[in-house]
């Protein structure tokens, strides 16, 4: 993700319409929200649907957003968490990640073999994550998909930063065990 697209201040809701607000938020945080979902779902299509759902919910609730309490991305990812919870409750979530479903993974390796190995490695990581506890998937996705800092994850989950740090390292450790 392009780091310049992050940490954009929220535009006051009263100054803009839903379309413009949606465009601004999506330009600033769309990739992070998409990656949050993508780390937890096998299909790019599902991740796109849920990204759209999260932004539509955010637009509807825009007047309740308080920039003094949370950064826009933290707030959007909090909404995204609820969207994912609803999705998991209502749908059968597929676990196995196929190569053909990594079409949204840009790989700029020089040779076809290297590109295939890179895709294989990512598919393994996603497959391993899919078998983990929801709490582990959640914290890994906020961290590596949503690219949140530890204090921001703490704000999104409503726990202390120290707790996040401990949970995060344990989740990475469990992921490593699954990959070995």
């Amino acid at each position, binding site marked *: 993700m392009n780091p310049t697209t992050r940490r954009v201040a929220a535009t006051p809701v009263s100054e803009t319409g839903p379309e413009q607000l*949606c465009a601004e938020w*999506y330009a600033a945080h769309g*990739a992070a929200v*998409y990656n949050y979902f993508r780390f937890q779902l096998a299909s790019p299509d599902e*991740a796109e649907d849920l990204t759209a759902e999260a932004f539509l919910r955010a637009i509807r609730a825009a007047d309740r957003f308080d920039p003094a309490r949370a950064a826009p991305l933290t707030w959007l990812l909090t909404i995204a968490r609820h969207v994912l919870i609803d999705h998991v409750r209502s749908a059968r979530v597929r676990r196995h990640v196929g190569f053909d479903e990594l079409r949204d993974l840009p790989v700029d390796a020089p040779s076809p073999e290297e590109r295939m190995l890179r895709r294989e490695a990512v598919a393994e990581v996603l497959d391993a994550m899919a078998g983990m506890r929801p709490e582990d998937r959640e914290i890994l996705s906020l*961290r590596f998909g949503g690219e949140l800092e530890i204090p921001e994850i703490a704000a999104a989950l409503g726990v202390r930063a120290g707790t996040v*740090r401990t949970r995060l*390292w344990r989740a*990475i450790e469990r992921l490593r065990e699954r990959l070995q």
Partner: protein
Amino acid sequence: MSRDHVPADLDALDRQLRAVQFEPRASLGSELEGRARRGERALGDVSPLQSFAVRSALALVSVAAAAALVVGVTPPPHRIDVCCDDLVGNKSATDGMVLSLDPRGRVTSLLLYEDLDGSRSRTAADRVHFVRGSELALAVPAHEDGHTTFVKCCDDLDGEGPADDGLMVMGHLPEQIHFAALIRYEGKRQVLR
């Protein structure tokens, strides 16, 4: 993202995970803008239909509508302007469609345009690709040389809610369009309108 003092033994996997970045489809942002502009509701929103007051009001309106039908008064047709996407196979998400539908959902007119002024709606500055009335008719033989068909699927194009509509466009695409129709997917059946 700062490193937050990753334990040394987890550093390699931490780096590997940081390097994984997916890219959403390029058109997702513009689609989302369009949905926001049309005031489309999120699936998880609490529907106003769940409100007792609104349900009661709707019941009254239903009674009034039924009464109006009895005396031969029908609601007026409605118009939908959908923009912007690639609707004619030109690989550019700048096309829009204006549909007029009668109260039974029948298409009474269909206009395809290119949103030249970037207004994301039909204006006089836009270029009209194609226009037809309620009749489904192909202006030239379908087997004519160079005739191609482009099908866009699936979305809620008729404003009824479900994303069960497609758009079929035929002609010397994308310059000349000889036929365009909405497709409604009903199981294995496809109904053109």
